[in-house]
């Protein structure tokens, strides 16, 4: 996983609640067996017309948002399907941070596994950041995970909180499987105990 420390970039405004993972990447694009290449299908139903041409009204088709690295949205971002292809598509497009009032649980987990930072901030703050984002290329937003602050174009700093373990993994780009495997002995002894107490689980 790519580490996330600090990021300064263009933020795209997406003033909508309940942006679901089918919207982020429709199911017909989930047939790839690799983790990469999903960026071209990000928000496909909104970004492209039925004939495949770009929808000029969609935010990511406008300058400077084609190069957006941050997305500002409203409540319950990432709801619906558990598809990890959603953060893969965001990442592949170049978006490494989403700021919203809250996130659906599975999407939130999936982001942390891929170096995409979901930042939860109150609705009023997201509305201010939405206005910042509407200013376009002259208004870059900084997301600093080390210090846990979002810096507005005005220089105002807004603190946020990330679970300490997740923050540690993200800052260092660590894979948690390796970490869990260090607990192999505990897993072995759990399995032995369970086998004795619940033999029906073991066929």
């Amino acid at each position, binding site marked *: 996983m790519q580490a996330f420390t600090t990021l300064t970039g263009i933020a795209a405004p997406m003033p909508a609640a309940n942006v679901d993972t089918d919207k982020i990447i429709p199911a017909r694009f989930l047939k790839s067996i690799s983790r990469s290449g999903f960026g071209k299908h990000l928000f496909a139903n909104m970004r492209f017309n039925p004939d495949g041409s770009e929808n000029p009204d969609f935010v990511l088709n406008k300058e400077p948002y084609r190069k957006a690295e941050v997305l500002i949205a409203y409540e319950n971002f990432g709801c619906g399907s558990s598809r990890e292809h959603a953060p893969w598509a965001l990442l592949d497009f170049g978006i490494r941070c989403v700021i919203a009032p809250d996130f659906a649980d599975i999407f939130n987990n999936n982001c942390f596994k891929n170096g995409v930072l979901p930042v939860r901030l109150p609705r009023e703050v997201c509305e201010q950041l939405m206005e910042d984002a509407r200013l376009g290329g002259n208004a870059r937003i900084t997301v600093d995970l080390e210090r846990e602050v979002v810096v507005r174009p005005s220089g105002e700093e807004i603190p946020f909180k990330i679970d300490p373990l997740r923050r540690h993994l993200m800052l260092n780009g660590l894979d948690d499987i390796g970490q869990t495997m260090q607990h192999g002995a505990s897993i072995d002894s759990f399995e032995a105990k369970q086998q004795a107490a619940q033999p029906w689980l073991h*066929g």
Partner: protein
Amino acid sequence: MSAQKPRTLFDKIWDAHVVETLPDGTALLYIDLHLTHEVTTPQAFDGLRAAGRKLRRPDRTLGVIDHNIATDASRYTGIVDPESRLQVETLERNAVEFGMPLIPLLDARQGIVHVIGPELGRSLPGMTIVCGDSHTSTHGAMGALAFGIGTSEVEHVLATQTLLQKPAKNMQVLVEGNLAVGCSGKDITLAVIGKIGTAGGTGHVIEYAGDAIRALDMAGRMTVCNMSIEGGARAGMVAPDQTTFDYIMKTPNGPKGEAFEQALAWWKTLPTDAGAHFDTVVKLAAHEIAPQVTWGTSPEDVLPITGVVPNPEEAADEARRAQLRRMVEYMGLTPGQRLQDLKIDVAFIGSCTNSRIEDIRIAAAIARGRRVADGVRALVVPGSGLVKKQAEAEGLDRILTEAGFEWREAGCSMCLGMNPDKLTPGQRSASTSNRNFEGRQGPGGRTHLLSPAMAAAAAIAGHLADVRDYQPKESV
């Protein structure tokens, strides 16, 4: 030793599966059953391969092919779409390489992952069950803790049979009283989502309780737990009771004889203790629930079938007004229009929400002696090969096909716009699936979620209809 604090069903299953608690409170949680399908696993197996890791517990892992496949006879001659074929073949290859049991595509037990787990007796009370699929919440109907995970977590479970998890909050949804005629588990779950909203359950595990839940058969409970995720909760569950135990006894792979008795003794200790704490309690009166149908593009935008399309301008704030305007436009509606006047193009009875034998029986009962309206395409897609076989043994396929319904092979079908069963732009469907998001059933498709009985009634009427006007005929 002091008396133990009263615990919920969730607390008990959680406590029984904590391998270790890390200093920050994160638990290393043991997973009893890991179900896999072709869409969310290829990258996880790639990860194992790259790191030289093995599948830790093949005996606790079961694969099945369901999302990508056609539900017509073409599956017998090979998958046409090259990308779908590659994804299915990749699962088959990974199963061989890593020693994972896989139900072959042409096996009678093949079906939707959330139908086959309970049906085969693999999903049992007290278990922790995961799958790279948000509707894993379905298995909670067995009295299990079951939730969807992403592909990185799939890889984590494949390698370690555990997950790193923070405990969820407890929510109780209490549905008391008797359901009215024409209503089912689907109407309960839609009414619950209408009440709590699509983020109402975020961070929670929902336990459904109350006599209306107790009165549901296992299929009804699975429908209710299935859509917990549409209410924002990763898991939904129902405490195991005699209905659960009777169901398990009839499954091919459930514990038998002495093992069953031993399991039963533990299962009976699982229900929530009196006085256990719930962080959130939501109450619904079952008799107040009328047949439900969604009108918008989020499952929370649901109304009784007697309702009318809302007027966006009456919403409280501008953000909501804008959202509702977009929904009305996308769905091709007019504010004030009666829901029952909405003509449909497609009726879809299927998906992990509603494709079990009980769902097909009710659809057939309503279809019997009637005809699908002209211009409506009506599909019935059984959730598994075993459901299909059972329905055919009962003659339900004949009743349905005589009424003009298509009788299909098992799979996810028109739930998600990933296989050949899709809506075309502008088509309106009455669907027993779980998501009415824009484009979910195909780009530009317009989805109304409802129960199997309501879908059958809509197929016959040619428009959304009140199932109470289409009760089964006494004789034909």
